[in-house]
């Protein structure tokens, strides 16, 4: 029976989705179902029944010419994708989410390792025999190494996702595939909500590491910064990994925030985000290293977060009003 549904979906895929057309398609579907059931009752095999029903469908062009559909003006240039393609896309999306998450995690790790190594050197726990110049450079080695690996990962995952660019441009999903994806998405949503809560909690409690360590002593607060960065890094990884899978579902199902309509808006907000957050990290590191303001510099993260949230909300509202 599913074969027949898919067949009919494909036949109607390039036709406009008007109420009349949906009605017509449903009627034909009922008709084909009746015929299929009767053939099965008459003792035909599954294959035979499907074969007969499909062979008696006819030619879709007959309907097209009768209904006076002008396919040239309304032509749907979006690609139709199958269940397998949708599944592969989601798997790849989740893999690339994991890769990007790891990349970002490594960037945080790079910053953390720089702080950690400098402090370890200062505390004379490691590198006692190094010259003072070598001591300065020592911390930079893992920093650049980790950032280089991260950049490599970004480029690799970007290239892997390139072949799915057509999905991001908007695709046509046959209704049978759509309901399948919708089901998967519905069962995924609770997982996503839980991970967002976990991520937000991690970020909220991360300054605690700083408070505890500063109580333990002057030098210990630097180690607190390292722990804070690692906690934020884990949270960011969780956001990116689970968010990317959700985005995958969103794009397939063309949920509002991922539809063509708001894509432009998303791009602006995305561009601002990609400048603002690294900038915040720079300020954090700068204040820390140059002015030794570790105990308070972390405040740039929540402030940036709140300001960015306000900006994106305001931008959406203003854009929405213009239309």
């Amino acid at each position: 029976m599913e074969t027949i549904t898919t067949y009919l979906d494909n036949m109607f895929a390039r036709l406009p989705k008007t109420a009349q057309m949906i009605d017509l398609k449903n009627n034909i579907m009922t008709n084909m179902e009746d015929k299929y059931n009767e053939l099965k009752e008459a003792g035909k095999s599954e294959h035979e029944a499907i074969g007969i029903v499909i062979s008696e469908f006819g030619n879709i062009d007959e309907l097209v010419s009768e209904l006076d559909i002008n396919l040239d003006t309304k032509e749907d240039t979006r690609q139709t994708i199958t269940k397998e393609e949708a599944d592969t896309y989601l798997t790849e999306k989740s893999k690339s989410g994991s890769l990007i998450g790891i990349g970002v995690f490594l960037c945080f790790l790079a910053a953390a390792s720089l702080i950690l190594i400098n402090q370890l050197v200062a505390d004379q726990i490691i590198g006692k025999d190094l010259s003072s110049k070598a001591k300065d450079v020592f911390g930079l080695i893992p920093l650049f190494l980790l950032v280089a690996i991260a950049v490599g990962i970004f480029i690799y995952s970007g290239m892997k996702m390139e072949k799915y660019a057509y999905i991001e441009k908007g695709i046509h999903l046959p209704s049978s595939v759509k309901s399948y994806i919708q089901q998967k998405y519905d069962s995924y949503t609770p997982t996503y909500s839980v991970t967002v809560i976990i991520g937000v909690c991690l970020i909220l409690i991360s300054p605690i590491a700083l408070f505890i360590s500063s109580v333990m002593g002057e030098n210990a607060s630097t180690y607190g910064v390292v722990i804070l960065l690692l906690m934020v890094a884990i949270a960011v990884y969780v956001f990116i990994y689970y968010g990317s899978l959700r985005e995958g579902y969103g794009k397939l199902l063309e949920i509002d925030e991922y539809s063509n309509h708001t894509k432009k808006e998303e791009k602006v907000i995305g561009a601002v985000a990609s400048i603002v957050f690294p900038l915040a990290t720079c300020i954090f590191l700068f204040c820390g290293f140059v002015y030794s303001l570790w105990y308070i510099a972390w405040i740039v993260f929540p402030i940036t977060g709140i300001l960015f949230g306000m900006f994106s909300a305001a931008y959406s509202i203003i854009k929405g009003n213009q239309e």
Partner: protein
Amino acid sequence: MISSDVIRGYNDTMILFILLKGESYGYEISKNIKAQSDEKYIMKETTLYSAFERLEKNGYIESFYGDETFGKRRTYYRITPKGQVYYKEKCEEWNITKDVINRFMKETDK
């Protein structure tokens, strides 16, 4: 098998013939056509529904939702008075057509 080119002009007439006996829905109509033709003609889905669209646009039939007590909601069709007039015209047209064509057929028994 009958070529669809030959029969094209009379698909609508066949459907109207079935509907003259009472209102009916898609599959029942196509089943009746198959039975009436002694299984020599099977109307394809697209032919059937193109015909419904055309007949309804011309006001020869009306469609309405039947309320099924169990199973799915079906679209039913019934013939209109205008459709009955049209059916009679087509019958007369066919009599003439048949007569004309027959005059060119060698193998027909006169």
